[in-house]
């Protein structure tokens, strides 16, 4: 009785769980071509820097695909992690820009200008680690992830989920904004941390620096997509999908659901933090306006427009919404809000799977018919599903 089973299993070993399916390789190639070749060739330095800024939001959207699309955890506080990552980077850059020579007109030279304005005479302890670049690079990811861990472990252990989690993350975003604005002596207040100049002596304000940072950013984004893809096709990815649909059942398969949710949330926080740090480097400052509720919800819409289950969609969605925002708000600032509002509604009512859904339903079938001879992708394995309930 074993031989037919083994034969069957052999036939399946060939390719039953590849790292990426052909269609995914194609998507990756298209995306990489766009952000690494096409856009840099087509756009001038200014526009390219702008795209670089948008791509930092794509990190957040990518995290949301894992955490919201796959694990079903909607966080309305991703701005918190984006902001924390960005602030960590900004603190390092600010310290570098506040050398005693640069700040000799202050009453206490060598500390950031806003501290001096607020009668702070020595560097607060939590700023000290940011004198070191390697430590900063670690903290950029570690601080948001630890914060995410603290928030999520407490809540998921107690099975707070769904709408409650969304509301609480939103409240945390609100709290952090008020705190940053209120503690301006330590944080730069509502102005944020501005006038950042050099990264370890390298001037980040020049056009060539912007170009280099753009490619670093794009490279990191593709790296994060590959990580997310690894997670998605691992058993953990399937557990996330299973959990989203039947959380109880996963428990009765012997998994500690809270642990998996915490992982998904922390991964999303880590991605957001990397995006935040790259944002600070490319834009040259960080302010509390990225921490609050409004940017956090806008970042959700990027993921929704791209398709909440599609890693590549997250990037496309982010680029599309931001492109629309920039071009609309240049010509019709009033219409833009109507447009954005309508986009939210449309994506929920009419296109719950976003751009990726349109691609899969309209374009992919035609493509596969063309290249069907290469290898027919298997619709059965991919989790094509309507949004979680």
């Amino acid at each position, binding site marked *: 009785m074993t031989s037919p089973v083994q034969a069957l299993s052999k036939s399946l070993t060939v390719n039953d769980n590849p790292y990426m399916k052909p269609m995914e390789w194609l998507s990756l190639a298209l995306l990489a071509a766009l952000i690494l070749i096409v856009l840099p060739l087509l756009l001038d330095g200014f526009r390219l820097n702008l795209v670089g800024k948008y791509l930092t939001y794509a990190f957040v959207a990518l995290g949301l695909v894992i955490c919201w699309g796959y694990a079903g955890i909607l966080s309305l506080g991703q701005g918190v992690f984006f902001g924390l990552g960005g602030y960590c980077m900004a603190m390092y850059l600010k310290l570098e820009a506040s050398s005693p020579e640069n700040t000799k007109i202050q009453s206490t030279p060598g500390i950031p200008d806003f501290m001096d304005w607020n*009668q702070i005479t020595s560097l607060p302890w939590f700023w000290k680690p940011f004198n070191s670049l390697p430590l900063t690079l670690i903290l950029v990811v570690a601080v948001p992830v630890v914060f995410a861990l603290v928030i999520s472990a407490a809540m998921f252990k107690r099975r707070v989920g769904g709408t409650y989690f969304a509301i609480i993350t939103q409240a945390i975003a609100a709290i952090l904004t008020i705190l940053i604005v209120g503690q301006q002596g330590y944080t730069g207040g*509502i102005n944020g941390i501005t006038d950042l100049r050099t990264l370890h002596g390298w001037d980040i304000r020049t056009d060539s620096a912007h170009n280099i940072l753009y490619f670093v950013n794009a490279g990191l984004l593709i790296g994060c997509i590959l990580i997310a893809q690894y997670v998605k096709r691992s058993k953990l990815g399937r557990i996330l999908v299973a959990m989203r649909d039947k959380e109880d059942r996963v428990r009765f398969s012997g998994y500690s659901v809270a642990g998996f949710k915490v992982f998904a949330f922390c991964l999303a926080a880590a991605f957001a933090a990397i995006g935040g740090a790259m944002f600070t480097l490319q834009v040259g*400052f960080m302010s509390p306006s990225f921490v609050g509720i409004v940017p956090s919800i806008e970042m959700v819409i990027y993921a929704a427009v791209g398709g909440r289950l599609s890693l590549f969609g997250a990037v496309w969605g982010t680029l599309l919404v931001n492109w629309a925002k920039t071009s609309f708000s240049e010509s019709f600032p009033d219409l833009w809000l109507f447009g954005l509002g309508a986009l939210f509604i449309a994506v929920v009512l009419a296109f719950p799977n976003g751009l990726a859904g349109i691609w899969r339903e309209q374009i992919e079938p035609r493509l596969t018919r063309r290249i069907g001879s290469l290898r027919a992708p298997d619709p059965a394995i991919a989790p094509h599903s309507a949004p979680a309930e």
Partner: protein
Amino acid sequence: MADDNDQRRDRGLHSPLRRKLLMGLAGAPVLALMPRGALAAAPTSAVNTSGLAVTDSEVTVGILHSVSGTMAISETGAQQAEKLAIEQINAAGGVLGRKIKIIQEDGASDWPTFAEKAKKLLVNDHCAAVFGCWTSASRKAVLPVFEQYNGMLYYPTFYEGLEQSKNVIYTGQEATQQILAGLDWVHKEKGGDTFFFAGSDYIWPRTSNKIARKHVENVLKGKVVGEEYFPLGHTQFNSVINKIKLTKPKVIFTDVVGGSNVAFYKQLKAAGIDLSKQVLMTISVTEDEIDGIGGENIAGAYACMKYFQSIDNENNKGFVTAFKKMWGEKTVIGDVTQAAYLGPFLWKLTVEKAGSFDVDKIAAASSDIEFKGAPEGYVRIDPNHHLWSKTRVGRAKTDGQFEIVYTSPELIKPDPFPKGYQ
């Protein structure tokens, strides 16, 4: 009638400048001296050596304010004043014989958007000057952009100081200019010796209050009995009102901004604090804000500004008439709106003095530029790129206007890094 006024004023301010120009550009084509002749101008290659958007007949400038988002409410007036000023300058022949063309961008109340759009105006559009920004945060966001790409920003809002840049002309007051004379006045005239500070929680109120506290404690030998800050948008002030009642200050000194203002004054009134008896001095309420607060809620409060719509002089009458003609009878004009109106004129005068649109030359030529046609009266640019101006104290009336009760006798020197106040 409005046109008459404008033209009169324009003529008045052009004639001495023309002479200066003559001296500065000896041998330059005579055509340059004919302000109303569009064709007449110095060759563009001479007045623009740094690749700005200047043609033989046109010069491009940017206006960068929030048209959308929470700050749109505040920034509307400034933007309107800048457009009015530019229209008037164009009607009078433009700058160096060139009409001013406006490119307007929306900062959308979002600081990175300000930075992004500022960069666009400088890098893509090569604007010769940009008039804009309102909040400190937006200015901080664009400042590195202006310094990096060598642009020229005319910033209209009264602000906290602690800044000075080659690339910015601050047409509003820095904090000491706005506050100190007012505190002296309230101390002398109203016997103010105990103060309660209440402000919104961000850099401008905190810095202003810091300066005010030093002045009260060190110069006036008075006492600050309370200092409170609220998140932006806060609407519940009953607790602070109780604290005010408890501490019984002679003077309530406020810098609450935005929507919070309305709640603050309404609740103050409801709690029985009568502004005809209790002295309240604000540095954040202009005619614009009273529109939302309601005159009856704030009547009796003193505001410390450099400009009120009710200033009685020829310049201001002309300005108010022209502004209402352009933007509607119901519009009101506050301090920042007037400061914004100064920007284009100061730039024009500087360009004409420098004989060039080049930013470096303008930055250098800005010192000691005088503008006699300012609605607030005579103003002058200090070498530190801030304006010399007077401080006025006005008392709010129920109709939303201010009755001016004090005007500083002299122009006050701008001092963005005040010694002894940091």
